[in-house]
């Protein structure tokens, strides 16, 4: 695991999904208040970029733009079919203004 800076807190608008490349890994990143979450950007079900979907704040989940499974940003688990596998979750720490991801 390497800790990689993916920018400053101000780079991420609250509740908006952003695709970020960190050390060759495509991440779907979302900021919720002062916390930032990162999951793998590839939907484990089919060929979709999760960052092109929607963030569902009530469920703390990222909804796949193609088939609608929503992945919890803390556990990676999908809430409904067609996805059946969890998406990988990457630990994020915010140090001062710096957003660091373990990839």
């Amino acid at each position: 695991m390497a800790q990689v800076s993916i920018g400053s807190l101000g780079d991420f608008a609250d509740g908006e999904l952003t695709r970020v490349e960190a050390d060759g890994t495509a991440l779907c990143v979302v900021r919720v208040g002062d916390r930032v979450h990162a999951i793998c950007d590839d939907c484990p079900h089919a060929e979709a970029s999760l960052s092109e979907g929607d963030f569902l704040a009530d469920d703390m989940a990222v909804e796949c733009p193609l088939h609608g499974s929503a992945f919890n940003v803390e556990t990676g688990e999908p809430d409904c079919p067609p996805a059946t596998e969890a998406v990988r979750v990457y630990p994020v720490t915010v140090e001062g203004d710096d957003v660091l991801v373990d990839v």
Partner: protein
Amino acid sequence: MGIALIAGAGMAGRACALTLRRVGWDGEIVLVGDEVTHPYDRPPLSKSVIVGTADMDKVVKPAPETYAQDRIDLRLGTRVEAVDAAARTAALSDGTSVAWDAFVLATGCAPRQLPIPGLERAHRITRMDEALALQALLAQGPQRLAIIGGGFIGMEAATAAVAHGHTATVLEAAPEPMARPLGREVAAHVLRWAQARGVDVRAGVAVESVAEAGVVLAGGEEVPADIVIAAVGQAPRLELAEALGCEIADGGVRVDAGLCTSVEGVWAIGDIAAFPSPWADEERIRVEHAAVAIGHGQVAAERIALGEGLYEDLPTFWSDQGDLTLNVVGVPRPDDEIVWRGDTETPACTAFYVRDGRMRAAMSVGDMKTLRGVRKLFAAGVEPPPAVLADPDTDLAALAAAG
């Protein structure tokens, strides 16, 4: 514990094997598949695989080494040839014999054979090797495709090919493609969307033969083509179930909600299973779609390893057609009343399938918010009247939450 034998390494069989180990089954797992490719996701075959955009590491999954790590004895290029229900043994085509304690039938479907002269010239897209053969031809430059059969597979292949610079003519015997799974009214819109994307659809035509230069229709008209694809449907493979003495019903192997057949120690999952569903009026349904196959595999594994688990998921399937994705939840019937919400032109809309005044299914395209609301309504058991469903200003998720 003992030996779990799984016949069929498609999406259902793969899910069953992987889940068995995950839920603590410590016995042997023998997974038998007649293809030579490691188990893979089948839905991309008719879409990204044929046009060459698929990331094969994400289609063929999990990674091949997973099977050895999970102590799954994966026998590729192998079939179960014969079974003895009394002795609980199976003879495999690799010459070995397996004495099973649990036998999972995940044999899927075989492509339908139609008495059309020359049909053997046509490509199929039911297996990976077939899809890769087609991919190699499409990679040579723009091709003229004639696709016999306007079901989901045919329409997906046509829309994918057209989006990648090929031309495609779909030849469908019925008045509307996809009318059987979606109903005529919804199917007519799906057809129109495909046509707007450049697919030539000839509905209500009969194919006479497949010739060197294309497809010959009844009456003699020839549809010229460089490549002919047959996507004319499939039928469940029931030979092993019949040999084991499993009860056959509703076109499939009759199972209970735990996917157990009428023969103790034998399960049937995926395409071949005729299963009870709390979401259907019918006594039993059969579903030939990926999400159900995987769910069946998982539940059967829990049953075998833990003795518990019921398959009660809301049936769901999808069809990617070029830039459009149709998402269907519930169990639609062709004669359901259709209530629309949203804009069918863009399209960004949802069709609700209403029976006896109740929503029984929905087909959503370009409208994720409504799709999510529908799933929440089903989960909560909330049934708003059709007029409320149709009103684009109603928040379906909020209605579900309010109960």
